């Protein structure tokens, strides 16, 4: 028996979790939306600073929380995107209030939910307990459902309803999978919390009954896979992205999908550590490839700009799932890098799209033209973001896709062809659309509300990562890739 686990982490981890939780409660009470939006930014800055401090701390796992090489970077990434989105959001809602689409009461609710959402994501990432992980992801669903319906239009309520029903069912199936994992582990570890604790489960994985694990994984993959937006469970994703406020689209694509995938990967690690259980790789590969191909084709028929980039998110989550499915050090490395790059690039694109939609006054792609002419900083920023997400050098997405494609061709040439086909088809759609968005005669001349700083900060990180990855970062990515098996 290992000694009883201490119940508190003597590090910054509590601050990372407590800051958003406290601010969620506090922001619900602040009536002035302008003040609230800057308090929101401040809270995110504190969370981000505390998350950076986690890199130096090496706390022991507790019964509820764990910090390891895998989740520490995702926590920092989540806190970073949370911060930049909060800055973007401050400008965005200024415009929404000015144009009368949002009233101060809803904004109070919005800011509280924004922090609550970040809290659930950070809790899910740092949870050491399967139950806590599940509760956190359920909480993330509830808070985002509320934010998607923020505008109270027919379309946004329908989107939120669809999102809630589909992800509610997904979450229910994931809970059944969690119960099955406990059932499998309980004969080995005895009843109680130990059989639901990651670190204990991983240590004893080899002794767990593999058959139940297999069944559990299928439920967990379908359940959490719904939240990742993997085909054929992706139906909620485009609607939820298109109808909610744009900052929420940015965090949905940039953060929520990653966190759901993180949950799936944790269970994949468990199966890999067991040895006798089924190989989860092929399942992930099939779902990943079908998401990629389906979304790539669907991109051509989108008329709504936010829906368009939502399908692009499905495509990229497909690529990432495929990378982890094929496995091995190189593909896992590519998957991790792609997770980070997609998260940064896609949220940057949504920041640009948010401004573009406010300028053009419409979400229809036809209604937005010539951004580089009317708003050069925004137009070129959007163009750079689309170039990055299309997988062109010198951006980081190119690097991760290149790594994945080479490692796929080395091991499964036929699947490599499908992968390249999907990426190429999506590339075509992106080029087709971005031309009209960025060039030609401009359609709107309204000034931009807020700063473009978040957009360019993300693009700079993605650019630097594409040109030069620092050696410690590479070593870290390799260590985690090995951990994933």
């Amino acid at each position, binding site marked *: 028996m290992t000694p009883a686990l201490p119940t508190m982490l003597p590090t910054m981890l509590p601050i990372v979790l407590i800051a958003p939780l406290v601010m969620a409660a506090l922001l619900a009470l602040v009536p002035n939306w302008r003040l609230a939006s800057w308090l929101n930014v401040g809270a995110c800055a504190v969370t981000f600073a505390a998350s950076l401090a986690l890199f130096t701390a090496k706390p022991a796992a507790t019964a509820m929380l764990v910090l390891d090489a895998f989740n520490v970077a995702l926590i920092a990434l989540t806190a970073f995107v949370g911060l930049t989105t909060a800055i973007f959001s401050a400008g965005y809602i200024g415009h929404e209030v000015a144009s009368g689409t949002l009233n101060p009461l809803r904004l109070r609710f919005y800011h509280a939910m924004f922090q609550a959402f970040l809290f659930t994501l950070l809790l899910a990432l740092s949870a050491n*307990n399967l*139950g*806590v992980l*599940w*509760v956190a992801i*359920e909480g993330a669903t*509830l808070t985002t*459902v*509320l934010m998607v*319906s923020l505008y*109270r239009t*027919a*379309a946004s*309520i*329908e*989107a*939120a*309803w669809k999102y*809630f*029903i589909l992800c*509610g*069912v997904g979450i*229910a*199936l994931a*809970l*059944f999978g*969690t*119960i*099955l994992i*406990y*059932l499998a582990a*309980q*004969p080995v570890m*005895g*009843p*109680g*919390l130990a059989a*639901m604790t990651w670190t204990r489960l991983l240590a004893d994985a080899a002794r767990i*009954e593999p*058959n*139940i694990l*297999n*069944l559990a994984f299928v439920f967990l993959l379908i359940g959490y896979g719904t939240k990742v937006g993997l085909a054929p469970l992706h139906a909620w994703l485009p*609607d939820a992205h*298109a*109808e909610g406020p744009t900052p929420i689209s940015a965090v949905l694509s940039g953060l929520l999908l990653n966190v759901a995938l993180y949950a799936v990967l944790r269970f994949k690690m468990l199966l890999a550590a067991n040895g006798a259980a089924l190989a989860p790789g092929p399942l992930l590969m099939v779902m990943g490839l079908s998401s990629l191909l389906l979304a790539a084709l669907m991109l051509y028929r*989108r*008329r*709504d700009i936010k*829906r368009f980039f939502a399908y692009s998110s499905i495509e990229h989550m497909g690529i990432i799932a495929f990378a982890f499915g094929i496995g091995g050090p190189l593909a896992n490395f590519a998957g991790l890098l792609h997770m980070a790059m997609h998260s940064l690039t896609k949220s940057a694109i949504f920041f640009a799209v948010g401004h573009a939609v406010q300028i053009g006054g419409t979400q*229809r792609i036809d209604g937005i033209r010539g951004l580089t002419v009317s708003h050069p900083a925004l137009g070129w920023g959007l163009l750079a973001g689309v170039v990055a997400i299309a997988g062109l050098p010198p951006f980081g997405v190119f690097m991760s896709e290149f790594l994945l494609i080479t490692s796929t061709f080395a091991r499964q040439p036929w699947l490599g062809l499908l992968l390249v086909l999907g990426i190429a088809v999506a590339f075509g759609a992106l080029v087709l659309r971005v031309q009209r968005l960025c060039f030609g005669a401009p359609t709107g001349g309204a000034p931009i509300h807020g700063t473009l700083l978040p957009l360019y900060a993300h693009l700079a990180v993605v650019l630097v990562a594409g040109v030069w990855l620092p050696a410690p970062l590479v070593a870290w990515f390799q260590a985690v890739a090995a951990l994933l098996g």
Partner: protein
Amino acid sequence: MIDIGYDAAHLLGALVLMTSFALLYQRRLFSLLNVFTIQALALSGAAAWQAYAHDEPHLYITALLTLTLKAIAIPVALHRIIQRLHIERTVEPALGIGLTMVAGVSLVTLSILLVLPVTENATALTREDLALSLSVVLLGLLMMISRRNAVSQVVGFMSIENGLILAAVGVAGMPLVVEMSIAFSVMVAFIIFGIFLFQIRERFETLDVRKIESFRGESD
């Protein structure tokens, strides 16, 4: 030798499953709610019996939460919503009743075939509880698919949660954290559903989900 503990647990689990079937063929919303209440009562009984037979006092809390929330508070609230909003009281299922029943029976067969072979090392009660609860979960899914009415979808969703609690109760020593969270999430889920029901009513004059599904959010 008769093992009362086993038989009673089995009986209550089977009752939950039976009510799941009954939910499938209700045409009137009020009788749907009544059947759901019976299911919640049976579930609460199953949890309480498990607490007594296996000496796990925390399960009494689960039983109590199920009783107060699902057997009393939620049905009462849904009754009031239906009355106040003048929602159409009868619903035609999208699939025929006969077809739904056939599908239901095959889902139960599926879950038995799925669960029993992989859980050979678990106790008989755990195995059967798990098979029963997976059936309840799948039947709940079937109900959500076969009913287009928002209130019946809410009931379907909650019967899925009932199935999950039955599973959690059946597995010995499952920590309380999880059950508390389930109860909590059901409550939150219900609040949200409630808000939605109101707004959908406000916007569309009817709670028929089919009508809002025609709206694709993308007009071209």
